């Protein structure tokens, strides 16, 4: 039995090699000082960078209206940042019920004035953004960020059923015109809201349905319109014409008379609200139709908020840590060659691949610990300092923050292991460190650094896809959404690759360097 539980000879010998390498590493005082220095630099520069960020905003061009702090960004039902700015024309509905309406037109205007002026209706041109929305909506509260469900026509995405900011289902395609109107219907049955659409008012299709948690008995039910900024950031407005409106416990016109007057509400258009609008929302009732004009969006908030993320201040400190670990990772092998210690090492562990593997595990583990521990300390510190300075920080759940912490560690570890490989191939410190810095650090600089994302746009984007700089994608925390037209570019703070894909690119470099080192190490004399 004991032969089954006892570790095999090779794994025992690997453990011995591992212990030997760890002993060699930890007894060099300079390297241990270097590790502590690297971790401290991450924390220090995160603090300095966070401390240098101050946010203030002005509600009018008059400087006396300027205050410290950030504009109000609502939180959605799941705690995510959302935009919730729209025009609502509603009644109160108690219990189950239905609203039906026909939309005969949806038109809009787009701000065309200079970017440094506050948008107003005076300088606009005709046009409709693709996510301009108008339709029927049910919400328990007009507080921003509250739960809702809505069926709507859009500028360029046909009929949609959306609820709670992030959920979206498609209905009839095509845009609205006098000859091609759309009938919409929204029903409430208990906690379930269902949206329907129709192109003739008699044949109805279900677009989607949602179960809204904690829906009270009395809710707002009505018509809404809103129109988001263009991907270039210009404020817009959309006006929808509703008629054939029926609202009440049953979907018939008779109920309308008994359900009281319409209440018009402009939601999220105050001076403290972050969303850029044209400030001309409102509604107009004629004998047989209601015109609703809205500006804003009901959707997830993206970098348009101008906020920071928990990892924003981390980058520079991590670059310093990378350089320190590149130096230590190189010396971990080159100093053995310089002092001839490598011959003793190979005499003790003749399997050279095993020596390299043991070294990789030691330097990788140490570097991971430095990166992860440093960012675990630096992230909350940076967040605390930035909030204290009045900055808005995108909410991130603990799993996502854990991904950034693991990512920081992995980034430093993979780089250190790759440079260990370079040092094994080149055997010379200076050459390996030069190659390490040029390949693993300098491409990073094209992002926020020397050349800058705006002047070298496409070059920077490609460097963050194909060079080791891709590993920094693990720090990305800005939300993206298919429901928001926005330039998700590096200039706006978005990494071109998803986090784990970016780390995979870096890991590929490390694998290649280490495999080449293994081949070279076996072929050459020590």
């Amino acid at each position: 039995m004991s032969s089954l539980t006892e570790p095999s000879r090779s794994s025992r010998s690997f453990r011995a090699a591992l212990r030997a390498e760890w002993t060699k590493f930890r007894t060099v005082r300079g390297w241990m000082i270097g590790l502590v220095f690297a971790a401290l630099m991450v924390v220090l520069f995160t603090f300095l960078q966070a401390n240098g960020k101050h946010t203030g905003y002005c509600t009018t061009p008059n400087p006396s209206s300027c205050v410290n702090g950030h504009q109000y960004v609502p939180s959605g039902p799941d705690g995510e940042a959302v935009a919730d700015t729209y025009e609502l024309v509603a009644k109160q509905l108690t219990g189950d019920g239905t609203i039906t309406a026909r939309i005969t037109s949806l038109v809009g205007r787009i701000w065309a004035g200079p970017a440094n002026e506050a948008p107003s209706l005076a300088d606009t041109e005709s046009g409709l953004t693709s996510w301009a929305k108008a339709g029927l909506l049910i919400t328990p509260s007009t507080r921003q960020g509250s739960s809702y469900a809505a069926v709507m026509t859009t500028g360029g995405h046909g009929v949609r059923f959306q609820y709670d900011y992030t959920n979206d289902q498609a209905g009839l395609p095509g845009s609205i015109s006098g000859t091609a109107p759309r009938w919409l219907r929204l029903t409430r049955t208990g906690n379930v809201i269902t949206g329907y659409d129709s192109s003739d008012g008699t044949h109805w299709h279900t677009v989607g349905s949602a179960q809204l948690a904690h829906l009270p008995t009395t809710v707002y039910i009505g018509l809404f319109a809103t129109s988001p900024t263009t991907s270039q950031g210009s404020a817009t407005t959309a006006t929808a014409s509703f008629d054939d409106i029926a609202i009440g416990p049953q979907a018939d016109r008779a109920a309308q008379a008994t359900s009281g007057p319409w209440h018009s509400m402009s939601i999220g258009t105050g001076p403290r609200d972050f969303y850029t609008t044209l400030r001309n929302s409102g509604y107009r009732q004629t004998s047989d139709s209601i015109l609703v004009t809205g500006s804003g969006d009901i959707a997830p908030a993206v970098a348009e908020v101008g906020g920071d993320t928990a990892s924003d201040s981390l980058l520079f400190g991590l670059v310093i840590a990378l350089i320190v670990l590149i130096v230590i990772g190189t010396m971990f092998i080159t100093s053995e060659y310089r002092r001839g210690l490598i011959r003793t090492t190979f005499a003790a562990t003749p399997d050279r691949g095993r020596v390299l593997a043991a070294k990789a595990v030691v330097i990788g583990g140490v570097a991971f610990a430095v990166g992860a521990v440093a960012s675990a300390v630096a992230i909350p510190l940076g967040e605390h300092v930035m909030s204290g300075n009045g900055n808005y920080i995108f909410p991130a759940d603990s799993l996502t923050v854990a991904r950034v912490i693991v990512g920081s560690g992995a980034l430093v570890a993979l780089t250190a292991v790759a440079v260990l490989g370079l040092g094994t191939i080149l055997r010379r410190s200076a050459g390996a460190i030069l190659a390490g810095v040029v390949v693993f650090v300098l491409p990073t600089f094209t992002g926020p650094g020397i050349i800058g994302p705006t002047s070298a746009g496409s070059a920077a984007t490609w460097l963050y896809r194909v060079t080791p700089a891709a590993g920094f994608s693990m720090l990305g925390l800005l939300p993206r959404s298919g429901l928001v037209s926005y330039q998700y570019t590096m200039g706006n703070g978005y990494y071109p690759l998803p986090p784990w894909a970016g780390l995979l690119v870096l890991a590929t470099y490390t694998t290649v360097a280490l495999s080449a080192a293994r081949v070279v190490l076996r072929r050459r004399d020590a």
Partner: protein
Amino acid sequence: MTDALRAEWTKLRTVTGTWWLVVGVLALSVAASAGIAASTHVSPGGASQDPTKLSLIGVDLGQAVVAVLAVLAITEEYGTGVIRVTLTATPRRAVMLSAKAVNIAGLALITAVPAVVGCLIAGRLLLPQAGLDPAHGYALISIAHGPTLRAAVGSVLYLGLIALLGLGIGAVLRDAAVSTGIVLGLLYLPPLFAQLVSGPWRRHIQQLAPMTAGLAIQATRNIRTLPISPWAGLAVLAAWAAGMLLIGLAVLKARDA
């Protein structure tokens, strides 16, 4: 002094690493300039560009190799123990270090000339395709143009001063790995940090850091908006190099080899 110079030159030219690094300076500089020039796309209404500075961007990368070449000129001797032979032959530390400085700076300057010319040629050939051509108000790059000539000559001098800075740091620290890390960090980290801070700090960092100050020599447009004027910037780099060499000399005199 002549003997010391010849001794240092013999050591420098007979180490195989030297010539690899010289080739590396040329290849990296020209390749970086060509790569950046080829991937540049200038939008018609965009901000004004500086074609000369853009085509000399290879110097940003080539300087790393120059710095390492200079670091190795002294740290290798400590690594192998040759330094004791060197100091036996040339006991006066100042003479030995000056001889090294003359040789390494000379080699850097001679290497820098074809590197800078190569960068400018790459820019002249590739930038018109990016929209930086006479039709859009950008003259072709030519060293007959005064500021361009200053940028080109200045870039060569810049690389010579970077070599002296590397030698100084190597003399202070004596270890190839640590010196390389420090010199590359000193060159590349301040410009990155300057981008991340705002207000007067950014300007001060750009005025004082060796790379940002020294590379002001490459600007040919909007010189008034630079944090530091071209020649003053090169002087800042010269002060860094001189300071490091003096500390190196002091360390050399005070410590055993």
